[in-house]
């Protein structure tokens, strides 16, 4: 009887350490990705970047125009 109780306790302790190890795994934002909303962030950053690049191109065009006018 005593032996089985001891065995039971050992199993619980072991199980807990295993569980603790599992929860100690590196946490990544997998659930955020699953929910799909990360795409919103991607879209926002992409639009900002596309906007800045478009702006750069427009500056480029204006500089080209002035260069032609001077040359």
């Amino acid at each position, binding site marked *: 009887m005593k032996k089985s109780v001891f065995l039971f306790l050992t199993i619980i302790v072991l199980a807990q350490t295993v569980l603790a190890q599992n929860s100690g795994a590196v946490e*990544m934002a997998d659930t955020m990705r699953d929910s799909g909303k990360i795409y919103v962030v*991607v879209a926002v950053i992409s639009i900002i970047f596309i906007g800045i690049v478009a702006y750069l191109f427009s*500056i*480029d065009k204006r500089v080209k125009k002035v260069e032609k006018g*001077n040359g």
Partner: protein
Amino acid sequence: MTKNWWKIIASVLVLYSIIGGLLIEVPSLPILHESIRNLYFHVPMWFTMIILYLVSVIYSIKYLSSGNENDDLLAVESVNAGIIFGFLGLLTGMIWANYTWGDPWPNDPKLNSAAISTLMYMAYLVLRNSLEEEQKRARISAIYNIFAFPVMIVLLFILPRMTDSLHPGNGGNPGFGGYDLDDNMRWVFYPACLGWIMLGVWIATLRYRIRKLENSQLDS
């Protein structure tokens, strides 16, 4: 360099690195967690800065042998654009450090070196502005630039490697390429670096062209 195709390639590469950098799977590492994705954005800032400084020093040497004013202008505008990327690298690094190393400025040798080299290039700009005569200014600042570039390389790549540093690849730490950078990450990281470098060169050439226009207006 006024053609458009390489600017479009640069934009597409960076855009790809933003989308891929946020969505493509990354290795699960302790402490870093998802912040490992900063590699795609923080590190290219420094690479872009170094390439722009390299362009600058090449044109400084060219100026000394040719005496052509345009070479001097390209040198200074490359530094002007490079310094922006240097500040972006410092700021993004501080945010990243705050959440992984627990301090925005943990007095890491690489951080201090980066700060010193940024100050060194700011001194270059101050030196230029303090000289009135154009040819003297161009010559003295070109020589300063030639000395500053190797010092920057030593500060960023040699000194931090000789002591303990938190940065990967320094003080006996394995580099990111060692085991953190898996094949998935390479496919985003290298295009990101290439894209940002081209974007930086684009901004530098834009500044150079505007500066040239300003100068031609002054002459006429």
